[in-house]
């Protein structure tokens, strides 16, 4: 054994010991509060060990990555999208593309079960599921000239599998935009400071767009730097608006009005040229996103806050006030993005593979960036759990659940065992520059309060309100980017579908077609957004599980494609690497869907909720304002129920298609095997 080898053994042995020690101290400290540093250290050790050993084993044994094989970036190089690029740069690109609001909101909501279940699933789900999915999908795409997931499902399963994947993508996009729009609308409701800051991001993006297109074409760093400074100014200026009684009135809107603003904005952004709004906003959001994540990581490590949430709460029995359902399966549905995110398979196929210079780089880019993304989920969970649990629940539970009167709401939450007083909430709201923090559902305000208290203790106690609105701005910037980009992608899919009936309509630049297809797309997500806004139970409790199921469905499709490819490329003895997470996902999504469809508990089942509400309406038990929206809510519960049936059917169609095509190959009926591009030797040094 050489000395280098001994050193390696020592280092990895030490990391294992530190990780095991951190877990031991988390386990032994049950009942008293623990320090977030233990969670951070334990998580870091798990990611490092999994990256070093599991992803190394997958790269060497399962995939047999071949550094001598030319990647599509090399063989199809065009100086633009196909371009061999340094692996750390690709890592940055890929991470920026997969990091979004999902791993921030999911863990925040899942904290209702306590800090332990969320932490464990973020770790286990990522290293055995999410990272593996991203890495394998990327591998399959690299070996197929950078094909997208839909095309691979079409080629490797069947045309039906391909169609199922496309339909799933369109549906999940609709739900995703709706739920993220709801998050940001809830954060802006009756908050002039937030509303002003978020509105100001629009002209700032346009200014940067003009700078990059007209004044200094393509000088991305200059334009972004100007934009970031303006964004910070917008946060400060929001404070002036908040402090001025007249201006405050101009930016004080209720959620309904804001939901219309967001819909109009989404429509305008989809029809405007990309250089004016979408592209510059994306540059800004990438910058702010990476900056804030780094800042949060540093702040958590510097101040090492105490976790105030218990390890487990009583709500694991399914009576949770933020979302309903037991720990299994709803923890997994709620966390979704930070552990396994189906959406990543769309970026991991298509965009990123065209940049990889060597096959062996996909271990860092595929597995590594998902591990980092999952650690962002851990940070979000910590930010939720450093709040007093009573405060956490008062912010996140809707008025429809605990009552809209502060006295009643705090009394109810205190009776659950999480003490909180109206005075405490009032002074917290005041220090954050908000009128109230009661029932600010959606996850963004509680994350912002958590981040503000962490940043506040790390970088200056007096600036809580500034940090709070900085955090809101940070979430808004990339939620609006997803909204713009998603509406645009939806528009193209709709135009393509209409184009089958009228060639004129299929032309993506024909103006009437652009307007009509954008309207259709915005109407689809706008509907779910609006219903979420008028729902007295906060909306997020319906939309987030629906989004989680859709996301896990897309992950199941991606893992099915990958499993079929493993089987058909003679790797059947390793098919469990993707097959096991697939089996778990199918179990989770099927159980969750069936409960959402069949449960007789109106808090859980969609159809049960519709029935319950109809009965209350008929019996005249509802207050007038509730009765006014009841018919729409009843219709929506039915619609969501049928949508869940549809998701469930899609999962099983794709899984059975995977089994069918694998069996056909194994029995020799389909001798073609998988459609890998031929080997070409790399010319790169």
């Amino acid at each position, binding site marked *: 054994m050489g000395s280098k080898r001994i050193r390696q053994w020592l280092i990895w042995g030490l990391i294992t010991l530190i990780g095991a020690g951190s877990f031991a101290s988390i386990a032994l400290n049950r009942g008293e509060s623990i320090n977030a540093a233990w969670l951070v250290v334990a998580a870091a050790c798990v990611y490092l060990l999994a990256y070093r050993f599991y992803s190394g084993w997958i790269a060497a044994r399962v995939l047999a990555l071949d550094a001598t094989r030319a990647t599509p970036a090399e063989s199809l190089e065009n*100086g*633009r999208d196909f*371009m061999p690029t340094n692996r750390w740069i690709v890592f940055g690109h890929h991470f920026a593309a*997969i990091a979004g609001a999902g791993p921030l909101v999911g863990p925040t909501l899942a904290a209702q079960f306590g800090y332990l279940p969320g932490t464990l699933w973020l770790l286990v789900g990522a290293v055995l599921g999410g990272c593996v999915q991203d890495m394998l999908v990327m591998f399959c795409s690299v070996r197929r000239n950078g094909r997208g997931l839909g095309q691979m499902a079409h080629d490797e399963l069947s045309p039906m599998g391909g169609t199922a994947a496309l339909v799933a993508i369109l549906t999940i996009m609709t739900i995703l935009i709706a739920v993220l729009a709801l998050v940001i609308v809830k954060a802006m409701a009756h908050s002039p400071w937030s509303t002003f800051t978020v509105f100001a991001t629009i002209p700032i993006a346009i200014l940067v767009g003009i700078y990059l297109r007209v004044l200094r074409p393509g000088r*991305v760093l200059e334009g972004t730097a100007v934009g970031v400074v303006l964004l910070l100014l917008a946060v400060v200026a929001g404070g002036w608006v908040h402090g001025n009684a007249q201006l405050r009135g101009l930016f004080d809107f209720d959620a309904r009005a804001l939901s219309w603003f967001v819909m109009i904005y989404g429509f305008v952004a989809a029809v405007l040229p990309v250089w004016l709004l979408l592209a510059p906003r994306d540059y800004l959001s990438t910058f702010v996103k990476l900056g804030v994540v780094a800042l949060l990581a540093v702040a958590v490590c510097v101040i090492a806050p105490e976790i105030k949430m218990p390890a487990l709460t009583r709500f694991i029995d399914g009576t949770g006030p933020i979302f309903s359902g037991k720990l299994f399966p709803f923890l997994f549905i709620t966390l979704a993005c930070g552990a396994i995110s189906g959406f*990543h398979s769309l*970026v991991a196929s298509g965009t990123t593979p065209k940049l990889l210079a060597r096959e062996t780089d996909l271990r860092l880019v595929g597995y590594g960036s998902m591990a980092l993304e999952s650690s962002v989920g851990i940070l979000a969970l910590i930010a939720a759990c450093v709040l007093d649990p009573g405060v956490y629940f008062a912010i996140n539970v809707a008025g429809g659940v605990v009552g809209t009167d502060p006295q009643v709401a705090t009394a109810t939450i205190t009776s659950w065992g999480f003490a909180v007083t109206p005075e405490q909430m009032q002074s917290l709201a005041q220090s954050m520059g908000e009128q109230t923090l009661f029932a600010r559902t959606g996850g963004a305000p509680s994350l912002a309060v958590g981040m503000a208290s962490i940043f506040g203790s790390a970088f200056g106690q007096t600036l809580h309100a500034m940090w709070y609105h900085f955090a809101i701005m940070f979430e808004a910037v990339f939620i609006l980017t*997803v909204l713009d980009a*998603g509406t645009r992608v939806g528009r193209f899919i709709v135009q393509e579908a209409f184009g089958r009936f009228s060639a004129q309509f299929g032309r993506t630049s024909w103006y009437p077609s652009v307007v009509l297809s954008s309207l259709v797309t915005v109407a689809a997500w706008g509907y779910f957004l609006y219903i979420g806004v008028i729902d007295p139970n906060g909306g997020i409790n319906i939309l987030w599980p629906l989004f989680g199921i859709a996301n896990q469905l897309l992950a199941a499709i991606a893992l099915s494609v990958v499993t079929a490819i493993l089987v058909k490329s003679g790797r059947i003895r390793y098919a469990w690497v993707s097959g096991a997470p697939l089996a778990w996902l199918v179990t989770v999504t099927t159980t969750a869907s069936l409960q959402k469809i069949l449960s007789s508990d109106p808090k859980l089942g969609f159809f049960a909720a519709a029935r319950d509400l109809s009965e209350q309406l008929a019996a005249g038990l509802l207050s007038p304002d509730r009765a006014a929206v009841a018919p729409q809510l009843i219709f929506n519960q039915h619609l969501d129920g049928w949508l869940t049936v549809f998701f469930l059917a899609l999962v099983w169609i794709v899984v059975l298609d995977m089994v069918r095509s694998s069996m056909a190959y194994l029995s020799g009926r389909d001798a073609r095997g998988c459609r890998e591009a031929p080997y070409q030797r790399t010319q790169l040094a």
Partner: protein
Amino acid sequence: MSIVHQTRWSRLWEGLRSLTGDNSFERYVKHLAIHHPEAQPLTRARFYASELERRWNKGGPTRCC
């Protein structure tokens, strides 16, 4: 010492430029010069416009939840 220092910073700077796409025009011109020396490269402004077109107006999602 100062030379090592300088190259480290300039490598970091180039990395940042690649990450943000700030140097994509230079990379494109270099690619053309090596692989298609006969081709006339686009101007910086035209290149930026066509890159945005390619990135956002074709194909699927480039941003996640």
